[in-house]
């Protein structure tokens, strides 16, 4: 995974609550056996008209939000299906940071495994950011993961909280499987005990 340390760029607004993963990437695009090729289908039903042309009304299709790498959205982003195709599509499209008042659990976890930083900010701060994004064309932010801060050119700055393990993995682009496998002895020991203590858990 590519390390993620500092992200600077335009903020695109998605002013909806409860955006579910079926909207982020509809099911007809889940048939691929690769991790790539999903970016063009991100938000498919919102982004494209029935004839396949771009829907000019959709925020991401507006000129001043093209190339944005920070997504600003509302509560409970990423709810529903566990499909990791959702963060794959967001990342391939170009989003490295997602800011929202809250996220759904599985989606939140999936982000850390795909070089996306999900940032939870207070609802009122998110409201404030929406106002700024709407009133300033090309509004941009810089997110510094190491110091856990977000700042804007006009001096505005805010701190955010993040799970320390997820932070480390993003900063170093770490594969957490390698990390878990360092504990193979513990896993083995657990398995030896399990056969004695919970034989019933094994398939007969």
């Amino acid at each position, binding site marked *: 995974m590519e390390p993620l340390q500092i992200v600077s760029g335009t903020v695109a607004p998605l*002013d*909806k*609550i*409860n955006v*579910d993963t*079926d*909207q982020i990437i*509809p*099911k*007809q695009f*889940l*048939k*691929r*056996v*690769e*991790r790539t090729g999903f970016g063009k289908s991100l938000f498919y*039903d919102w982004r494209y008209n029935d004839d396949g042309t771009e829907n000019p009304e959709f925020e991401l299709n507006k000129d001043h939000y093209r190339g944005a790498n920070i997504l600003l959205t*509302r*509560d*409970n982003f990423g*709810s*529903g*299906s*566990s*499909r*990791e195709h959702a*963060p794959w599509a967001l990342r391939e499209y170009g989003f490295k940071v997602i800011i929202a008042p*809250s996220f*759904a*659990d*599985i989606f939140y*976890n*999936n982000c850390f*495994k*795909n070089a996306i930083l999900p940032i939870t900010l207070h609802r009122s701060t998110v409201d404030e950011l929406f106002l700024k994004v709407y009133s300033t064309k090309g509004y941009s932010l810089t997110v510094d993961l190491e110091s856990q801060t977000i700042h804007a050119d006009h001096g505005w700055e805010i701190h955010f909280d993040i*799970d*320390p*393990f997820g932070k480390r993995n993003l900063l170093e682009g770490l594969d*957490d*499987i390698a990390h*878990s*496998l360092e*504990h193979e002895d*513990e*896993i083995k020991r*657990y*398995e030896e005990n*399990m056969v004695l203590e*919970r*034989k*019933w*858990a*094994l*398939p*007969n």
Partner: protein
Amino acid sequence: MAAKTLFNKIWESHVVLEEPDKPTLLYIDLHLVHEVTSPQAFEGVRLSGRGVRRPDLTFATKDHNVPTHDRSLPIDDPISKKQMDTLRENCNEYGITLFGLTTNSDLQGIVHVIGPELGLTKPGMTIVCGDSHTSTHGAFGALAIGIGTSEVEHVLATQCLRQNRPKVFEVKVKGKRTQGVTAKDIILSIIGHIGIAGATGTVIEYRGEAIEALSMEERMTICNMSIEAGARAGIIAPDEKTFKYIEGRRYAPKGKDFDDAVESWRGFKTDEGATFDKTVTLDASSMAPQVSWGTNPGMVTDVTGYVPDPDTFSDLNSQKAAKSALSYMGLTPNTAIREIKLDRVFIGSCTNSRIEDLTAAAKIVKGKKVAQDVRAMVVPGSQMVKSEAEKEGIDKIFKEAGFEWRESGCSMCLGMNPDILAPGDRCASTSNRNFEGRQGKGGRTHLVSPIMAAAAAIEGHFVDVRELDINKEI
């Protein structure tokens, strides 16, 4: 010893390692795999040379993509076919048991239907699957968590999962439900009450008289939709019904092993005096059959109710969401739910496609005809459910009424196979998600119980099943 919750007991017995500032390394007893969320994970363990640590604890099925029409025909969609072929090749390469369209095909079915059916799902276990409705298995007192593909890869390689300890949320349902109010109505009422993010970061333990009274299949319906309230998992303490359900199933312990197992399983319940992080109490006796009117499972109301007016919602974001939902659904505020006319009816999905669901729906349908202009289909959750239904003549009841009777799979729950809604089609569905486009672009989904769906198929619009004779002999 301190009083513990059921969740805590399972969690603590599966800790492999705890380190400061890191999520717990948790041992996984059973890993279920399907064709959509696994190919990239298998590719990962292949490229890294890590392989699959415990193929004996890993079981796979094809369900999301499978065609539900005649299985002797070739699969039309080449990309679907590739995904299914890839699963078969991966299972062969790593020695994983597969329930597919040709291999063990009589045991194929939706992953969350076959786990319990085969006796793989048992109390006190940790179970994962790259699918959010893994919560279904919690009905047996197992900690069952839906995971993403990177985590699938992690479990394939290590048989462990890294998880931060969730909070425990007690949802207590007291009272007795009235006739016509099903497990589906209970869970929809719960979600309507706590909201679709009401249980985020928690594991729900469902308790109370109304939960204890449910059959195992009904408990699966409840736990299945825990994710629809944002929960990481839902669990129900095992009891005699649980043990009886498991006994004799294909992969369940046998003979003395079974008796020993039951002895251990009896301990998997919340101790008297244990505390929860959060508690909500609802009363089943005041619940009515539910119908969803919007584009998420929290947007539900009683069948006797009306489509709400978004302007009456207090919060601005919810107002906006409700307006956009009504526009997508093609509904006007204050329309009576019972006046909503339907084009399609779908009885199926891991929420409601088991034998009890099909039997209950068949009782409503028997001797009647599907309304003109309505296209209705039944998709059994597994081939075992299908053959049992056929043994009891349930298929004939549906077919005579004008329902299509299909092979098992996810089908129109998410429409990855050819079973989809056309734009604008309105469907009464026993599945779990009414998200925009879930059953087909522009398709409009109303979530209901199997008996509500069956009655709607006959009348062509929603009806209150409490007014019907729902206990006829088949």
